[in-house]
C-alpha cells in the first residue's frame, strides 16, 4: 500500500515525458495529486509501522504526509492554469519534476531507515533544482546555484552525521544498522559522544534544508526567484519534510535519554531564526522574499515549540499544518499579484485589492492569518506554544517570542498593506483572477480558518500521538 503510494507519482511522471499534449500533461498533476491524497486518506487510520521495516507511517509521518499531500493537490490545480499561461516556458520539465518531487517527499516521510530518509531528502533537492530554475534567467540561475551549493553541503554534513550515529551503534561488534526502530531500541546503549556529534551534524545538515537561521541564506533567493507554486511547495512541503528529519534525530536523542542538549540547540536556533526574520522583514520591499523570511520565522517557531516540549510540542505540530497551508495560500496569491503587476517589488506593486479583489483579499487575509490573528489557525497554535512556554516556566523566552512577533508583524504589515491597499495606477497587465489560480489558495485559507475554529477529534489524537512520540524517554 505505502509502496504504491510512493511509486504512484512515478508512473505519470514517466507518462508525461512521452505525452505530446501540453494541456493533458498539465492535468496529470491534479489527477496524481488527487489520487495521492485519496490514498493518504485511505491509509489515515492504518496500523503503526512494523518494526525493522524500511518504510512505515507513525503519527508524525502521517501528519506530515497529510499536509504535504494536501498542499501538493492545491499547487497541482494551480499549476494547470499557471502552466497554461507560461506556454513559452513549456512544462516538459516542470511536470515530471513535480511528480518525482512528490514521490521523493513521500518516501522521505515514510522512511523508517535513516539512510533511506537521507537518500530521499537528497532526491528532493535534486529534483527541486530544475523547478527553481524554471524561469531560466540570470537571477534564477543564481538562486538555483546557491540553493544547490548550500543544500548539498548541508546534505553532506547530514551524511556524516548519519555515519556518526551509525558508528555510535557499532560497539559490541554486532552488525549495526540504521533502521530507525533498531536504533530507538538500542538508544540507551549508544556511544554518547558519537551520538551527540551525529545529532549536531544532522541538525546542521537538515537544518540547512529546513532553513533555520543562520543556515537559511538560500531561502530568500530560491523562494524569490522560483515560480509561486514551487515556492509554496518548498516552504510548505519540503521544509516540513526536512523538519521531520530533524524530529527523527530528536526522537533518537530523547530515546537515548539526553534530549536536553537537543532541546537547547533547537530553542537557540529557533529564537535566532525569529530574530533574523524580524531584522529582515522590516521595510522589506520584495513581497516574495518577505514570504521567504516569514518561512524562516515559522521554522523558528516550530523549532522553538519542539525545543520547549510539553504543550508547546503539541502546538508546534499544529503549527506545522497551519504554517504549510497558510504559506501555500500566501505564495500562490503573491504569484498572482506578481503576474498582474509584472513585478514583486513594492515600487511597482500598489493597490492589489483594487486590481485583483480576490487574490489581493486572500493575500491580506493570509497575512493576518500567518501573523497569528484570531480566528485563523496559526493563532491557535502560536497561543498554544505560548501557553507551553509559560507552563514550562520560561517567561523570558516567552517575552522575547512575543516581542519578535510584534516586530515581525509591523515589518510584514507595512509591506503587505502597501502592496494591497491604495490606488493602483493603470493595471499594467491584462491578468485577471482565474478560477484555478484563486480556488486553491481560497480553499487553503478556509482550511486554516476552520482549524482555528474547530480542531477535529481524529486530528487532535494524531497530534497528541505525535507529541507523545517526541516526548517519550526510555
Amino acid at each position, binding site marked *: 500500500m505505502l509502496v504504491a503510494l510512493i511509486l504512484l507519482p512515478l508512473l505519470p511522471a514517466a507518462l508525461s515525458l512521452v505525452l505530446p499534449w501540453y494541456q493533458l500533461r498539465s492535468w496529470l498533476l491534479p489527477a496524481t495529486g488527487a489520487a495521492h491524497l485519496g490514498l493518504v486518506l485511505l491509509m489515515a487510520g492504518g496500523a503503526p509501522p512494523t518494526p525493522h521495516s524500511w518504510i512505515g507511517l507513525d503519527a508524525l509521518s502521517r501528519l506530515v504526509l497529510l499536509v504535504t499531500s494536501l498542499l501538493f493537490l492545491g499547487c497541482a490545480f494551480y499549476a494547470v492554469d499557471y502552466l497554461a499561461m507560461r506556454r513559452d516556458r513549456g512544462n516538459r520539465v516542470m511536470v515530471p519534476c513535480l511528480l518525482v518531487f512528490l514521490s521523493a517527499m513521500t518516501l522521505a516521510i515514510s522512511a523508517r531507515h535513516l539512510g533511506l530518509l537521507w537518500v530521499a531528502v537528497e532526491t528532493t533537492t535534486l529534483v527541486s533544482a530544475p523547478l527553481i530554475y524554471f524561469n531560466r534567467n540570470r537571477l534564477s540561475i543564481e538562486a538555483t546555484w*546557491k540553493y544547490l*551549493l*548550500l543544500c548539498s*553541503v548541508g546534505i553532506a*554534513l547530514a551524511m556524516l552525521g548519519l555515519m556518526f550515529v551509525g558508528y555510535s551503534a557499532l560497539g559490541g561488534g554486532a552488525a549495526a544498522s540504521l533502521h530507525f526502530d533498531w536504533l530507538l531500541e538500542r538508544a540507551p546503549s549508544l556511544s554518547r*559522544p558519537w551520538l*551527540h*556529534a551525529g545529532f*549536531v551534524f544532522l541538525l*546542521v545538515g537538515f537544518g*540547512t534544508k529546513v532553513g533555520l537561521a*543562520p*543556515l537559511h*541564506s*538560500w531561502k*530568500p533567493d530560491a523562494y524569490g526567484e522560483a515560480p509561486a507554486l514551487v515556492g509554496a511547495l518548498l516552504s510548505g512541503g519540503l521544509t516540513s519534510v526536512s523538519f521531520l528529519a530533524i524530529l527523527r534525530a530528536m526522537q533518537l536523542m530523547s530515546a537515548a535519554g539526553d534530549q536536553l*542538549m537537543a532541546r*537547547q*540547540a533547537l530553542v537557540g536556533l529557533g529564537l535566532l531564526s525569529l530574530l*533574523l526574520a524580524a*531584522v*529582515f522583514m*522590516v*521595510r522589506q520591499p520584495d513581497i516574495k522574499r518577505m514570504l521567504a523570511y516569514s518561512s524562516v520565522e515559522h521554522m523558528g517557531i516550530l523549532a522553538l515549540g519542539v525545543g520547549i516540549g510539553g504543550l508547546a510540542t*503539541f*502546538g508546534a505540530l499544529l503549527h506545522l499544518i497551519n504554517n504549510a497551508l497558510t504559506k501555500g495560500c500566501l505564495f500562490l496569491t503573491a504569484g498572482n499579484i506578481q503576474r498582474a503587476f509584472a513585478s514583486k517589488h513594492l515600487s511597482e506593486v500598489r493597490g492589489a*485589492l483594487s486590481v485583483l479583489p480576490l487574490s489581493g483579499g486572500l493575500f491580506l487575509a493570509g497575512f*493576518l492569518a500567518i*501573523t497569528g*490573528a*484570531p*480566528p485563523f489557525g496559526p*493563532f*491557535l497554535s*502560536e*497561543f*498554544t506554544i*505560548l*501557553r507551553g*512556554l*509559560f*507552563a514550562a516556566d520560561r*517567561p523570558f523566552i*516567552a*517575552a522575547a517570542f*512575543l516581542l519578535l512577533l*510584534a516586530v515581525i*508583524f*509591523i515589518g510584514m*504589515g*507595512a509591506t503587505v*498593506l502597501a502592496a494591497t*491597499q*491604495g*490606488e493602483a495606477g493603470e493595471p499594467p497587465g491584462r491578468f485577471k483572477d482565474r478560477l484555478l489560480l484563486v480556488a486553491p489558495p481560497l480553499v487553503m485559507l478556509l482550511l486554516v480558518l476552520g482549524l482555528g475554529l*474547530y*480542531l*477535529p*477529534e481524529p486530528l*487532535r489524537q494524531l497530534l497528541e500521538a505525535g507529541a507523545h512520540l517526541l516526548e517519550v524517554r526510555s
Partner: protein
Amino acid sequence: MGWFVAGLLLLGFSGVPGLFAARAGGGAEKLACLLVWAGAACGTLAVWEVLKHGVPLVLDLPWAIPGGALALRVDALAAVFLLPLFLVAASGALYGLAYWPQRAHPGNGRRLRLFFGLISAGVMLLLSAANSLLFLLAWEFMALSGFFLITTEEHQSEAREAGFIYLVATHTGTLALFALFALLEQAAGSLLFPGAGALTLKGAEAAAIFLLGLFGFGLKAGLVPLHIWLPGAHAAAPSHASALLSGVMIKTGIYGLTRLTSFFAEIPPWWGATLLALGILSGILGVALALAQHDLKRLLAYHSVENIGIIALSLGMALLGRSYGVEALVALGLAGALLHVVNHGLFKSLLFLSAGAVIHATGTRELDHYGGLLKSQPWTGALFLGGAVAISGLPPFNGFISEWLLYLGAFGAAQTEGPGPTAALLAAPALALIGGLALACFVKVFGVTFLGAPRSEAAHHAHEAPFLMRAPMIALLLACAWIGLLPQTLVPLLEQAVALWSAAPEASAGLSAPLAPLGWISALAWVLLLALALGVWWLRRRARGAARAETWGCGYALPSARMQYSASSFADFLVRLLRFGLWSERHGGAARGLFPEPGQFASHTPDLVLDRGLRPAFCGLAWLFRRLRALIQNGLSACYLLYVALTLIVLLLLGGFF
C-alpha cells in the same frame, strides 16, 4: 440567552446581504439597518432580562479546540457596556443611511456596513465571553473590523497611515493579551475566567498580569502614552464609524481592566495609584492636546483620550478603595467609572454624529473654515451644544452626574482617617482642571463652528442635515438628558454592577447612601432647565422687533468675518500656558516695523508620543536593520557557507567537544 445569541447573529450578519446586492445599492442598505435594529432590540431584551432578575445569563457549550469552551456570561457589569453599544450601533446604522448612502459610495459602502455590523457583534461577544480564547477571538474580530472601518477611504493616504498605526497598536496589544491570558491560565488552572475575587494570587505573577493588562487594554482604551493610534483613526473613519469606535470600542479596554481586576481577591495599593496617575495624565494631556487642535474630528478624538483618563482615574479610585477596604470609595469610584463609560458613549457619539453633519454640509474638517452655522443648521447646532454641555460635565446633563460621583469619592477619600487612600483626593483638583479645560475647548468648538459669521464659502452654503441624520442625534441627546435629569433610574444597574465587581453583595450598600441626593440633583436640574427655557423665551419675546445693527466693532470701520477670533487664537493663551507639555510648532505671526508687511501665522501641535517619540525611534531602528541586512545577506555564497561552518563549530563547542 436565546435573545442574546439572536442579537449577536443579527448584528454580525447585518452587512452580509449587502454583499450580494448591486453596487448601486438598492434595498440592501435599508435591510442592513433593519437587521442592526433587530439585533440591538434582541440584545436589549436580553440585557433587560439580566437586570430584571439580577442573575447573569449563562451559556456553556463544548468547543473542540485546545483549551477552548463556548462560555458566555452576560452579567450586570457587561450590561453597563452593552446598553450604549446597542443604542450607538442602532443610531449609527440609521445615520449611515443618509450619511454614507450606497449610491454616493458604490466602492466602499458595502464594506463599511459589513464591518459596522461585524464590529458591533464582536464587541457584543467580547463583553459576554467567559473564556480566554473566546475573548481573544472576539477581541480580534473587533480589532480587525475596526481596522477596515478606519481604512474605509483607503484611497486617501491619510486613512491608510492611520489604519496602519491602528493595526500595529492593536496587534501589539493583542500579543500582550496572549501573554496575559497564558499567565492567567497558569494562575487559575484553566482558560475559563475565574469568578470575581476567586484569584488569590500575589507577588510577581499578579504584578505581571496587571501590567500586561494595563498595556494591552490601555492600548485599546487609548490611555496616555498608549493613545498614539486614536486621533488619526477617529479622524479618518466615517463619522458614524468614529462614533462607534470612540463611543463603544475603546471602552472594551476599560471593560478588560475592570473584569481583570475583579478576578483578584486582594489588590496591592500601587495598582490603584498607577491607574489613578495614568488617568490624571491622560485626562490633562488629552484635553490639552484637544485644545490645540483645529481639525474637528481630531479634537473630538483627543477628548476621548481625556474621558478615558477620567474613567481610568475613577477605576483607580475604586482599586485604592479595595486595597484599603473603603467600601464607599469602591462603590463611588466604580459607579462613577461605569456611569462615565455610559455617558461618554452617549455624548461622544452624539458629538461625532453632529460633527459628521457639519462635515457633510461644509465638506471640510478645518474648524477655521466654519462659522455661523447655527443659522443654517439650527438642529445640528442645538444638538451639538447639548453634547458640548454634557461632555464638559455641566448640569443638567449626564456628564455632571458621573463627575459628581467621582468628586464625592475624592472628598470622601480626603475625610478617611489614618493611612488610607489619600492619593484619591488628587482626583478632585485634577477633575476640576480637566473640566475647566474641557469647557474652554468646547466653548471654542461650539463658538467657532456655529456662532459668529461664516468664515468660508462652504460655511455660507451649508445646509441642515436630513431627518435621517437628525433623528439618531436627537435620540442620543434625549438619552443624555434622561441620565442628567432622572439619574435615580440608573441606581439599580450601578448597584448590581458594583456588587458583582467587588464580589461583595453588601458593597452596593456603600452606594445607596451617597446616591440618595440624586433626587435633589435631578429636581434642581429640572428647575434649572425650566428657568433657563422660561428666561430665554421671555427675553426673546421681549426682544421681538428689536432694532438690528452691525456688531459693535469698537470703532473699526469695516469689520470682516475673517477678523473673528479663530479656533487657534481662542486657544492660543491656554496653549502657551501648556507649552511645556505640548511643544506646539508656531510659524510666523510676528509683525515688525511701523508698517509691517502682510504676514502669515500657523500653529500646529503634533502628537507628543507618536510624532516626537515613536516615529523617530522606529526610523532609526529600520535604518539599523537595513545596515545589518546588507551586512549579513551580502550575496556571496562563500559567506553563507561560512555561516554554516560557524553554526557547526558553535554547536559542537556547546556540545562539549573540543
